[in-house]
């Protein structure tokens, strides 16, 4: 019988930064002054900033303690749906920290940056190859920025065709960034309802697609973990009316080596390097969201673009139809290096295995948990699957309670309450880097929690109790926001 086994290591209480330190302490070593002091315009001078003064041991202890309150992939399973919390390889960190990658200024003369530019050029080629598309921009700094870029590309395309459009089809399973990106671009999102199998039907799309609609934003596989089987017909319907197909590539981890996105009818797609390509999430970012496009959209890509002449790489802004610039420089190079390292370490064969094992792990969880958690779409899933709290409803516990009790069992909960089309969703993506033993442990924990729901539901409602803090009051935080100390 599985017992809650979470410990949180040492449970320090650590005050806020400005509650520590003493005026005059320092954790910084200034170089010796080798110039005299010059006058400063006194009415422009400042006495601040009001930062605390700490010594170096205090700073180190502070952040060491803070880090020990955190759960990371290195701590345990992190089954967040559509986040692809796979292992972050340490060699990639070491490579990204090499002085020749970490130190160069972005505006150095190009002849001093050929190695850097080569990394970017190779990554562009790899991503085009992996997706089956033709041209790539590495500029977008995150998936959502990639989506916005894609929207702007589609908009530029329609403008050039003399047919500016006002609407965009967005499936009801879409991630919130999809309609948000469409709206920023001036498109009115029109919801497409998924069918009883949890995927888009060609009929539903045909019923909505017209010459006022710029196209459709699909996620494939979708957020229910299901492959959009009708994608090719849907793409035809959209193209027939002059629209474009945008694919949110967040779930690419399911498809390495299996699907040619270009062949499936996609015109533009973004990838999340911090999901599929193993770069670390850092508590919320930075990531990178490169866009890959079919040939006809290449001329609209953001500038500058990387060009190669006689073996020499350089930046070119010679692109009269470009949508412009998305990033202050060239994108998140530090993230690109890590993704490039990952692809070089894996090679084609292993990347294909990544998808096989990711899908294997998700289906294994699905088969083992569907007796315990309600599974609305009981068929083959891809890299993730979605459960609901329906089976536990009569115990008066909900998805939130189940999630919080998982913490007491030592697991980070899956994504909860998304996608919205499923009530009380538990969107679960194990990824390929988890062992069978870990998955068996997770299955046992969920089964134990289900038993507790029936015999001692208070354990769920009071959870978590093993962590340093209990359930936090999000209502007061929103009613009376205290955002600075």
């Amino acid at each position, binding site marked *: 019988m599985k017992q809650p086994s979470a410990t949180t290591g040492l449970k320090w209480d650590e005050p806020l930064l*400005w509650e520590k330190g003493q*005026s005059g302490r320092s954790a910084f070593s*200034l170089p010796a002054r080798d110039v005299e002091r*010059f006058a400063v315009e006194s009415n*422009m001078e*400042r006495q601040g900033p*009001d*930062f605390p003064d700490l010594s170096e041991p205090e*700073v*180190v202890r502070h*952040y060491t303690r*803070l*880090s020990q309150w955190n*759960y990371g992939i*290195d701590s345990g399973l992190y089954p967040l749906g559509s986040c692809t919390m796979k292992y972050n390889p340490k*060699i990639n960190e070491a*490579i990204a920290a090499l002085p020749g990658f970490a130190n*160069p*200024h972005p*505006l150095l*003369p190009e*002849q001093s940056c050929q190695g*850097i530019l080569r990394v970017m050029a190779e990554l562009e080629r790899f991503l085009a190859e992996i997706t089956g598309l033709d041209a790539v921009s590495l500029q977008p*700094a*995150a998936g*959502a920025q990639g989506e916005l870029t894609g929207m702007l590309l589609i908009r530029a395309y329609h403008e050039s065709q003399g047919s500016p459009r006002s609407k965009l089809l967005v499936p009801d399973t879409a991630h919130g960034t999809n*309609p948000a990106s*469409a*709206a920023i671009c001036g498109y009115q999102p029109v919801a497409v309802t998924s069918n009883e199998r949890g995927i888009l039907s060609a009929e539903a799309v045909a019923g909505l697609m017209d010459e006022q609609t710029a196209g459709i934003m699909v996620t494939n596989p979708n957020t229910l973990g299901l492959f959009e089987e009708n994608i090719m017909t849907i793409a035809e319907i959209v193209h027939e009316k002059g629209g474009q197909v945008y694919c949110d590539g967040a779930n690419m981890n399911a498809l390495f*080596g299996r699907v*040619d996105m270009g*062949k*499936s009818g996609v015109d533009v797609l973004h990838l999340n390097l911090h999901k599929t390509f193993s770069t*670390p999430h*850092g*508590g919320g*970012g*930075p990531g990178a969201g490169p866009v890959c496009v079919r040939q006809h959209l290449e001329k609209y890509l953001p500038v500058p673009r990387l060009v190669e002449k006689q073996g020499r790489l350089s930046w070119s802004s010679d692109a009269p139809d470009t949508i412009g*610039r998305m990033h*202050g*420089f060239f994108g998140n190079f530090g993230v690109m*290096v890590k993704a490039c390292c990952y692809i*070089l*370490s894996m*090679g084609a064969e292993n990347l294909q295995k*990544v998808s096989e094992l990711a*899908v294997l792990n998700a289906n*294994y969880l699905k088969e*083992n948990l569907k007796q315990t958690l309600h599974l609305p779409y009981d068929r083959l899933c891809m890299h993730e699957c979605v459960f609901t709290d329906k089976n536990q409803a009569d115990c008066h516990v909900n998805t939130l309670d189940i*999630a919080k009790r998982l913490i007491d069992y030592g697991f980070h909960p899956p994504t909860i309450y998304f996608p919205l089309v499923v009530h009380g969703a538990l969107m679960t993506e194990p990824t390929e*880097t988890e*062992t069978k033993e870990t998955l068996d442990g997770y299955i046992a924990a969920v089964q134990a929690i289900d038993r507790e729901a029936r015999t001692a539901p208070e354990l769920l409602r009071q959870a978590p109790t093993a962590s340093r*803090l*209990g*359930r*936090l009051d999000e209502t*007061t*935080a*929103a009613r009376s926001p205290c*955002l600075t100390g």
Partner: protein
Amino acid sequence: MRYLPHTDSDIAAMLKAIGVDSTDDLFANIPEAARSSREMDLPPAMSEWEMRAYMERLAAESPDHKIFLGAGKYDHYIPATVTNLLERSELLTSYTPYQPEVSQGTLQAVYEYQTLTARLLGLEISNASMYDGASALAESLLMATRIRKKSKGKIVLSSLIHPSYCQVVKTYFRPTPFEITFLPVLADGRTDVSALADMGDVVAVAVQSPNFLGCVEDLAGFGDLVTQTKAIFVTCFTEPLAYGLYQPPGGQGADIACGEGGSLGLPPGYGGPGLGMLATKMDYVRRMPGRVVGKTTDANGKDGFVLTLATREQHIRRARATSNICTNSNFCAIAAAVYMACLGKTGFRELARLNYDKTEYLKQQLRRAGMTLPFGAPTFNEFVVKLPPDFKRKYADLAASGGIVAGLPLADWYPELADHYLLCVTEKITRADMDQLVKEVSE
């Protein structure tokens, strides 16, 4: 492969539990026509040895330089403490703190970052970061339109905002009916704000300080004029260290202050990742984009932190969100907080002063060598100097074989500033480095 733990017996047991014969069967739902027709054409898998050797060769093509180069990214010394603490995998490999009970490390660190940022910029609140300074400016201007509840009108930018930032703003505003106009430059290198008085329908005005030419703008004066137009006053920066010496935007009328925080503990990294900072007044909090951490208590009354005001964001508000931003530059924000914690009030001020004094020294020496510095406004750690026309060839030689990058040639950026160079001096440049540069330009 060492990242893929499954053994053949693992796979066999799992396939059995699922009820299929092979992993291929798991992909049965993919239509034939969409399938890849061949294996991906990628280099064969490299071992850790091979990959390291390969990448080290590429990295070696960018040897170390002495750079007098700023223009949006500044080469500051990063204490070993910062680098070391940021290797802690609980901070690095964690996700967005949607489950706050197991993410208090990230949440408290970001709350502290927000507080230090607000104090640095002299405003009431800060968000948990944007991607970089350029997108932070674009998002701040979009925020201004929401505050004023305007769907059209003028967005007025100083033409001395970093040119790449202006490009990004134009890209973000392309799908909107807003009109972007620019304010011209005064002889002293500051923005000429006088034209603002005659403009109607102004929704937001933005100025960068120190500006792209290195000059510190008269923010208070600017702010007064903007207030008269009822527009939202947005200030931006590329070098936040300047606010260790100079008055921050908050006390000078700024409604929103935004910019690039890379100087605070991030390596130049060929331009990214960066750190978009955004601070504003509490009154505007519900229009502010991005995540934000708030303080609260748990079920037992203990202090803790959560992401809050999430109803502004895309995962709840979807099409009506304040922004589409999801992933931010969280890890960089924590790096900046650690850096600011290492410096402290005293250190931040002293470091700013050192940057300023070294830069003033170089300016003085160049003047003594007969060079013209065309702009008279006060500067921080960047300024413009006119060098002899034949320096162009020397510039390339110095970079290629001398290991010195003598600033940014402005000819490509402003045709009227041919033979002008934007020089930057940080604490990493020595007096000897500067004397050598002066010698090189004088010969």
